[in-house]
């Protein structure tokens, strides 16, 4: 009997551990996963990020752009170019309801961005104006869970009716442990894979997950834009005034 005591204890412990694992492994549906992605990506009340963009052509030649980005919540974002000199001062404002403005210092004018511009390249990068807007994926896309493996959920996102976008669908790899999206495939209207964004160096800074290095690759043009976080501040109580036309031209 005495010999059997350790055996039962081990079995019991294994059963307990198994129950714990089962309890942890809640099955999320696609909507819940996407909602968690939005929560993680937009978790900070506000963000001030200095970014370095490296544009890499198919021959490996590089060009560098520097910009500063302010974001409040999930819907307001301002992006201002610091360099190169030819683009210094160009500023972009993204507001809810697909409203975007562009300030062009050479003309001393702020122009509203018409929807035909939204799918064009943002200052020569592989990001479009649409890619640069602040948004919640769950408000624009209908998710479908394609696959779940040990480390990732793989979601297919299709635009909701009435959403203006040039993408027919997105395939998003979401880390299972923290719901941070690590890879996004963008498909054009003909359903061809068009661009791929990968996010690396995903770290927790100030309690929030952030990718310190990401890359957008245009497969057709064989051109890449690497986005590197140079400096970041969270929750510094950014004023709403920053996200106005008034601030854009400053």
């Amino acid at each position, binding site marked *: 009997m005495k010999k059997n005591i350790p055996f039962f204890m081990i079995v019991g412990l294994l059963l307990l551990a198994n129950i714990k694992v089962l309890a942890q492994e809640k099955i999320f549906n696609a909507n819940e996963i996407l909602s968690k992605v939005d929560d993680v990506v937009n978790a900070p009340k506000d963000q001030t990020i200095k970014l370095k963009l490296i544009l890499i052509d198919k021959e490996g030649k590089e060009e560098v752009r520097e910009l500063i980005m302010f974001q409040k919540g999930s819907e307001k974002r301002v992006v201002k170019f610091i360099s*190169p*000199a*030819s683009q*210094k001062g160009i500023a972009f404002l993204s507001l809810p*309801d697909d*409203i975007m403005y562009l300030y062009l210092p050479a003309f*001393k004018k702020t122009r*509203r961005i018409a929807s*035909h*511009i939204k799918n064009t390249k943002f200052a020569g990068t592989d990001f479009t104006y649409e890619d640069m807007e602040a948004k919640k994926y769950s408000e624009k896309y209908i998710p479908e869970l394609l696959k779940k493996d040990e480390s990732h959920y793989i979601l297919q996102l299709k635009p909701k009716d009435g959403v203006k976008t040039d993408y027919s669908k997105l395939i998003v790899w979401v880390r299972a442990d923290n719901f941070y999206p690590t890879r996004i495939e963008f498909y054009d209207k003909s359903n061809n894979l068009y661009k791929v964004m990968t996010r690396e160096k995903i770290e927790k800074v100030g309690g929030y997950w952030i990718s310190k290095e990401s890359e957008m690759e245009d497969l057709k043009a064989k051109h890449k834009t690497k986005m590197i976080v140079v400096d970041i501040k969270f929750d510094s109580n950014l004023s709403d005034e920053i996200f106005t036309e008034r601030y854009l031209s400053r």
Partner: protein
Amino acid sequence: MTHRVFLLTVIGLLLLNFSCPLLAQESTGSGVTWNGYLQTDNRLQLKSDNDFSLQEYRLDLKTEANPTEKAHFYSEVWLRSLGFPTVQNSADLVDKNKISPLSLDFREAYVDLYGFLFNNLDIRIGRQRIAWGTADKLNPTDNLNPDDLEDIWDFGRHLGSNALKASYYLGNCAFEVVYIPMFTPAVLPQGDWASVLSSSMELPAGLTLRNLTDTIIMPKNNFEENSIIGGKISNNFFGYDFSLSYVYGRDDLPLTRKVTFTPTSTPGEVDITSELIYPRMHIAGIDMAGDIAGVGVWAEAAVFFPEEVKMVTDLSALGMGIQESIALDDKPYVKYVLGADYTFKNGIYINGQYLHGFVHERGKDNLEDYFMFGLEKKFFNDKLKIIPIVGGIEIKDFKDIENNYAFILSPEIAYFPVDNAELTLGIRLIDGKDTTIFGRLKDKDELYFKVKYSF
């Protein structure tokens, strides 16, 4: 010589100005920056023995500082070598300004005070460009700064004005009030364009002209005569940006109000002297911009309420008395622009504008119609921009288009070999009837080459 010493002094001060902020920037991290660009612009006429029509080497220098969150300083100057040597005799060879003409153009210099007195109030004091209107470069409501028509192809270029601008923000609504103490006339183009933009005068039968002289009568140097005021309200409704504006100012192009004929000793020959003024006017404007089914659209209109200007033709020295007519009547007239642009999925961008009333036109019966258009596409990751179609069509009389049209075509290629560098090669082809503005320049086709490097 004095002029050159002045220029060198200014350059020295600018360099000193730049170097100190740079040191400050390194040591304190303050937000003082300077940048600018170098631009060369050479134009060659394709007819007229391949004359050079323009040669400009421009160094643009901008300084910017944000000493505090609530203050901002900005300045921009152009140092230019513009034009050609003007030496005519050996004495001129000691004058560098005649050998190599240089000029300093003080474009802007202002300070912004944000949240001045009230949190929602910003003021800007100093020489500044106040660009109103939603249309593309040709803006009927853009009437605060004087036109700078030195280079007529640089549509929309204006001088800066010494002004005070106050902007008050209330939600999406913005109120702007502008006060410009001193009226400044427009800069007129040189050469062929000067005669094209000015009105012609017919001599009475049998007379020939010996000398023509004119006198510009500037407004009196006081608040009532000289000042320009303006106001604008902007808001957003149903996804469209709208603004209403008002300006009490002056037409910045001169208008002849008196012509005096004086006979010379040669029978049938006369000297003419004329007086020109800048008429006062009220201008009410409205503009909008938005998006219809994915197409960017804009519209802009200005109603001009000019003062009546009588024209006196003094022929008394010829024994023909004094005649009076109306040079500018006080009937309101409207200039407007309707425009749209679109980017196709393949990256081709098109832009079109219909314009009623060009910059120099005034009076209800003198406004003509223009169609401006452009098509461009970028290649090789924006390294190359080809603009195969860009230009305009002028229609002076829709009832007789065949004899009253002109067009300009200006295809262009721009190449961006490295960051901040732009090389542009283009050609400007003009044709049309002599009754039109552009048609009178049909022999002035030109090739141009520009290089711009930003730093």
